[in-house]
């Protein structure tokens, strides 16, 4: 059972049909270069802490949010992250702490999104701790894959094709913002 829920968490975050989580992580990483892996690690950890908290709380039904609101908030996190990316100073250090805070706070919102899917998977288990843990680990593994792919692509563009960091950031953030606006318009929230 553990492996089943682990696989479900892994495939859920990597599911291209539900690309909102993928897009958020890509946008989050757009301002970093490969050598800043320590900052990326802190960033991803902040996002992880955020979504683990709400996934657990929501799965245990300690917090309940209507799905349409969550579906609206998730693209909003992508849009804000993208706008923050393009409006920031060239020097990353000045705004890096704010980035961690954004990752943590927005992680809380994405965790609610994960929980919608996780709760749909629950049968009549009396103890959901093990499925929850397995699902969460699966999500983390999927998240690591997305970060690694994003950083590898960034490395390729910035080091092989000599694309400037600012241009890479604008490219990623612009595309993410555009998609996020579409998601916001189509959200059932309206």
């Amino acid at each position, binding site marked *: 059972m553990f492996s089943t829920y682990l696989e479900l968490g892994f495939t859920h975050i990597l599911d291209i049909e539900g690309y909102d989580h993928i897009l958020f992580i890509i946008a989050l990483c757009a301002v970093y270069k490969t050598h800043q892996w320590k900052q990326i690690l802190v960033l991803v950890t902040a996002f992880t802490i955020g979504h683990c908290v709400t996934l657990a709380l929501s799965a245990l039904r300690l917090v309940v949010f209507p799905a349409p609101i969550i579906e609206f908030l998730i693209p909003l996190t992508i849009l804000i992250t993208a706008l923050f990316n393009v409006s920031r100073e060239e020097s990353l250090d000045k705004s890096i702490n704010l980035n961690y805070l954004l990752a943590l706070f927005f992680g809380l919102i994405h965790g609610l999104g994960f929980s919608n899917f996780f709760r749909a998977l629950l049968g009549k288990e009396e103890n959901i701790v093990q499925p929850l843990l397995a699902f969460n680990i699966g999500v983390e593994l999927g998240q690591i894959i997305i970060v690694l792919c994003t950083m590898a692509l960034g490395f390729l563009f910035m080091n092989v094709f000599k694309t400037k960091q600012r241009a890479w950031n604008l490219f990623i953030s612009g595309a*993410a913002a*555009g998609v996020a606006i*579409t998601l916001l318009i189509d959200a059932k929230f309206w």
Partner: protein
Amino acid sequence: MQVFYYLILVFYGCVSFEYDHDIHVSVTDIEISKDGGVEIVVKVFIDDLMQSMGLEMGAELPDDYTSSDDLINQFLNNNLEIKINEKELTYTLDDTAPSTPAVWITLIGKTADDIKTIEINNKILIDQFDDQSNLINVTYLGERYSEMLNGGETQYVISVGK
């Protein structure tokens, strides 16, 4: 100039994607006790189930409608088959419990106490949704087996007692 490129990309993103992230999942829990008693609990989203049964909220009932239990029985007989030791299990509807947005359907049956294989053929809602996934959990003699059927998969076979 950079802002211009940024706006182009925003526009590109706006016109290039559609968003469809509805969850289409059912869960079937099968618990087989030592004496051969079988309890099957199926969790399925009510709106999906109604759509599959040709019912619409607020619309008139079909002429051949008898009861919701009959419809659910018919639905499950057509979509959920369980074979134990290669012999089809006969189950009966025991209870339905709506818990919006899903409904829990409990079925009961009886089988032999010496089980070697369990085969589940689950076609629940796969004709309705391309992205329908059906999770199956089986518990037998304290062991738990799970499988997610995706992408049109319908069969899960377990060998037990080895």
